[in-house]
């Protein structure tokens, strides 16, 4: 048993200081929902994004992309299809008390072909 005790002492403290400090640096490697680059988004790209999104977190309404961050699994398929129009947002603190806060309306501004 004393071996366990010594090991514990030697190992030191590994506990994160979050929330007193920002999330630890390693969290930069976590998958995050995308941010959309509005002036690179055109209707064709938007439709391709909607088609590739497996959990249907995206749908297009006219010149807006309706984006449900809550439904997003951060699978990264849109990042491949978007050709620079989607980038990882880097956001991991996404919890909210209002479901509607997770639904974003993204303007499709890159209409010029």
């Amino acid at each position, binding site marked *: 048993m004393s071996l366990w005790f010594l090991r514990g002492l030697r190992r030191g403290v590994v506990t*994160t200081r*979050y929330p007193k400090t920002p999330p630890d640096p390693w969290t930069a490697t976590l998958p995050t929902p995308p*941010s959309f680059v*509005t002036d690179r988004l055109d209707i064709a790209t938007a439709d391709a994004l909607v088609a590739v999104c497996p959990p249907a*977190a995206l749908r297009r309404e006219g010149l807006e992309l309706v984006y449900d961050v809550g*439904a997003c699994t951060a699978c990264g398929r849109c990042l491949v299809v978007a050709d620079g129009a989607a980038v990882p947002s880097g956001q*991991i603190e996404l919890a*909210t008390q209002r479901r509607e806060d997770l639904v974003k309306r*993204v303007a499709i501004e890159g209409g010029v072909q």
Partner: protein
Amino acid sequence: MTSPVHGPAGLSTTSSHSADPERLADELSRNVQRWFGRSLHIRTIDTGSCAACESEIRLLGAPHYDLHRLGFFFTPAPRHADLLMVTGPGVRAMDPALTKTWTAMPEPKVVVAVGACALGGVYPTDAFTHGAIDKVLPVDVYIPGCPPSPIALLHGLLVAVGRLVDRVGAQPFTTTTTGPAAASPC
């Protein structure tokens, strides 16, 4: 809280939550820090997850996260629980167990929907699943992610007890080629 109390599809909610939801919700959001700020007991329930969310929740108790230091504890009994963490899309076969767990919890109680399945991201509403937890229970806090990392879970729990503010509402999730639109990724 502003989350609506649904006439639950298939679930009977006989607690005072459905008696006067508006008043109770207001009271809860005013008092949540006073009631739960220092010590809060968590019960978990799985309604059809893939087991990854459970794995992340288990790690909350591990040395790297140690949620006890924040005054949170897991409890094996719903009657001792203040907060219910629900994973999975709400499989209908779990309805009786979910109702019993929720009604067994004393008031005031907080429901946290954990993961993309529970938020309606993975399964549609169909004969197998409700598709999202807020279709069956009044959800107070939503934690996105597939699965949410333990840090995201900690953030969600602290939002639930009013010790952190939620910031996602102010995030536009857009940017432009010339620079960040309103907020840049951190």
